[in-house]
């Protein structure tokens, strides 16, 4: 039984078609890595799952809920789906602690003490409990991204979407974020990760998805697709990344 089911999804930005008839099923607990050249639609793909982008054609079902603009459905789906952004998107005017507590307090209705306790446990999990009272701009990029991951976790999502979580980071900070993500992957949460980190994909992914020009070109277990790419486009893409 798949927790996410996309059926023949298409998405347009004016005349540009970002997704072309994409179908994808993700099982609960599965870890999917999506890669592809820029402009291939990989970010759009995951942004459709929590409806930051609305698809025009096809159907997306998240844990039994069909995605539409109906507020109740949106609320249900977004409550279940967390997202980590390339640019972190922390709230700059709030402390780390307040960034983490906002959702639990306002959306889940937790008390102040409960929210703080939950926030602290997730900060410990991403290994920065001592930064709780700082503001985002006082932290390094890697620390900010770990705060962003903790903020998502505080909502206790069943699905976590990562939109190029390490692309805005300095090289020496990429590892600390990937470590946290690897640890998360072992907990059984469903993860869809858009990334160019092929080492991470090999280590963690159950399935690799390669996209190009709005289509899923290749899909399969990492060892299969890496060792024997079926399409020329994916073979060329791997070559480029590995030679880089």
């Amino acid at each position, binding site marked *: 039984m798949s927790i996410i089911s996309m059926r023949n999804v298409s998405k347009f930005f004016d005349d540009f078609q970002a997704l072309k008839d994409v179908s994808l099923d993700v099982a609960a607990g599965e870890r999917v890595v999506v890669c592809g050249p820029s402009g291939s639609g990989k970010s759009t793909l995951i942004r459709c799952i929590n409806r*930051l982008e609305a698809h025009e054609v096809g159907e997306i079902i998240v844990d039994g809920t069909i995605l539409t603009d109906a507020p109740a459905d949106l609320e249900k789906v977004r409550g279940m789906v*967390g997202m980590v952004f390339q640019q972190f*998107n*922390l*709230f700059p005017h709030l402390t780390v602690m307040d960034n983490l507590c906002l959702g639990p307090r*306002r*959306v889940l209705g937790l008390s102040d003490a409960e929210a703080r306790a939950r926030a602290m446990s997730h900060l410990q999990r991403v290994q920065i409990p001592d930064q709780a009272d700082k503001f985002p701009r006082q932290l390094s990029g890697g620390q900010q991204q770990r705060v962003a991951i903790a903020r*998502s976790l505080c909502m206790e999502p069943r699905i976590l979407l990562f939109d190029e979580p390490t692309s805005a980071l300095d090289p020496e900070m990429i590892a600390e974020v990937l470590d946290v993500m690897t640890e998360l992957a072992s907990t059984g949460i469903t993860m869809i990760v858009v990334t160019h980190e092929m080492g991470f994909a090999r280590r963690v992914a159950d399935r690799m998805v390669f996209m190009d020009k709005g289509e899923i070109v290749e899909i399969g277990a990492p060892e299969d697709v890496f060792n024997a790419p079926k399409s020329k486009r994916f073979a060329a893409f791997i070559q480029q990344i590995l030679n880089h």
Partner: protein
Amino acid sequence: MKRFLILASALLLLSGCSNNWGWYVVDPTTNTGWANLRFMASGAYYTIIMSLTAIVISVVVGLLVALPGLSSKRGWRMFNRTYVEIVRAVPILVLILWVYYGLPALSGITLNVFWAGVLALALSDSAFQAEIFRAGIQSIARGQYEAAQSISLNYRDTMRYVILPQAIRRILPALGNQLVYMMKMSSLVSVIGLQELTRKANELVVSEYRPLEIYTVLVLEYLVLILIVSAGVRWLERRLKASDT
């Protein structure tokens, strides 16, 4: 700035020696002069209270008008544009006269001078506040909305906890400008008889026949008030900045 002020006051004092000036009307060392000064300064009460009340109302109304201007729905945006264009096109003095003399005839609601002044100033300023808020809110990166959506915050909470606190920090200098502007424009309410600074000065001129000196003191009164407001706004800016570093 400082040098300019010293120069200006030196010039005033020097010219005070000539026959054209009669500083006695506002000379604090004489009884009448002191009484006249106190009479003039007592107008500050209404100038301050009216400006502050009006700015609070205009900020609230401005925000309520700005939000539909950011909507994706055309009808809401039209409401915002129409309000801003119409209100912005009416001169403040005309609005004051219309609210005080026109509104009672139209609606049967009679406002006293104070509330007529507040309403006219607030209404007039709200169109500008709406534009300021709209620009401020639009300057917040889209990622902030997306992050708020990703943790399921509804529209109201997104605005209240995420967008507005950031927008207000950015537009604070502009809001300070509007408060200064409001204090100056409040002088126009003297035409309907509110006993604020300008009205008091006018009344004194009528009885003392020394417009030059009295209006000079009036200029200084506004200058002092507005310098205080500017300092207050700068203090607030510093404090808000300090609170998130």
